[in-house]
């Protein structure tokens, strides 16, 4: 199709209006890439017709949209903030979390054994729920701390198509998955490889997110972070 000025003019206007569709739209986009003249015509219409857009009444978007944008652009920022304090949960992730997921870490009394590393432990609790949701403690053999024990206490099952996933939140970089975690009576023993153990030793921070059944498929949390907890040395 020849790029006569009349044709460019007509197609540019319909492109901006949105009435140019399908393969015709794609073909015109190639014209735009090829020709400054075509782009200029498009810009003319974009600017003129945006006057129509600017008279549409504003509508405040929900806060979760900014949180989602931040998470998309800077997932590492979320993780770093988590390690240095919990302020990032409010108002970003916190707004995505289910209602009243207010948490704190509590210390557990545990008799330390002779270990190479200090033992860490903690609990995930939620306001208004009696008892902890999960208890966490490190465990090991022969002086090697290489496992994390997670015992569900008051945790209830996620929605039918969702699972809880446990993460180590390192001081820097992406959260490291420790896998999907159970509710009910089963104690979960999680083997920690050396790098995960080292990251946990440094940040002492764990997080639980709500994920699709079977856990996140991207290697990073995709759903809301429901809980963040610090582990304590005993």
């Amino acid at each position, binding site marked *: 199709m020849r790029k006569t000025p009349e044709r460019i003019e007509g197609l540019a206007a319909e492109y901006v209006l949105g009435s140019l*569709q399908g393969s015709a739209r794609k073909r015109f986009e190639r014209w735009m890439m090829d020709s400054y003249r075509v782009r200029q015509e498009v810009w003319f219409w974009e600017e003129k017709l*945006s*006057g129509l857009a600017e008279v549409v009444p504003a*509508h405040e978007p929900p806060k979760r949209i900014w949180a989602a944008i931040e998470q998309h652009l800077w997932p590492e920022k979320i993780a770093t903030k988590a390690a240095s304090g919990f302020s990032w949960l409010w108002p970003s992730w916190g707004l995505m979390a289910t209602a009243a997921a207010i948490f704190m870490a509590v210390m557990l009394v545990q008799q330390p054994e002779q270990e190479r590393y200090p033992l860490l432990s903690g609990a995930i609790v939620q306001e208004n729920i009696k008892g902890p949701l999960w208890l966490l403690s490190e465990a090991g053999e022969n002086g090697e701390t290489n496992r994390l024990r997670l015992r569900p206490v008051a945790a209830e099952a996620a929605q039918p198509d969702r699972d809880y996933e446990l993460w180590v939140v390192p001081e820097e970089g992406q959260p490291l998955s420790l896998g999907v975690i159970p509710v009910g009576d089963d104690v979960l023993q999680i083997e920690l490889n050396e790098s995960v153990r080292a990251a946990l030793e440094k940040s002492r921070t764990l997080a639980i997110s709500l994920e699709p059944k079977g856990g996140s498929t991207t290697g990073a949390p995709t759903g809301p972070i429901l809980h963040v907890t610090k582990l304590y040395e005993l």
Partner: protein
Amino acid sequence: MLEDSTQNELMVLLSSVARQDRQAFQRLYEQVSGRMFGLCKRLAGQQELAEEALQDAFIRIWHHASEYHSDRGTPMSWMMTIARYRTLDLIRARKVRQTAGDDALNSVEDERSGPLEASLQRDGSAALTGCLDELSPGQRDSILLSYYRGFTHDELSTALSTPVGTVKSWIRRGLQVLKRCLEK
């Protein structure tokens, strides 16, 4: 239309965003997201799709801020255009149909008021420096419904009870008249 001082402020923010300034990006979001979301909602006619479009639009703004230049209009019009295209893409990709029972179409039968709220039509006309008034009612309605609701030719044909061929010609002729007027 936004005042020049606001446009200047947006220009400063946008150039900071082009240098990957995250704080400027957040301030930009706080300043313009309401207007952009209003447009996305109007166009999509549903919350979920509008939210997705707004999110995508801002991610695009972050990555492409350096491509903005004054030939592309004011910063606000550039960002509104990004939001609008993204919403249109999602509507088409999801095949969201603009239903004929929509509130916006309730007054279609009324020749005087046309298919959009009178306020939008009046303000839109002012934004186009009165050029909409030079169009016939059919040309004006089909252009406004395409712009504000993302109607396809087929949807316009249904909404305006007019053959597709006529609708296409209304749009084509209407845009020509509009261009001559806007260039004056």
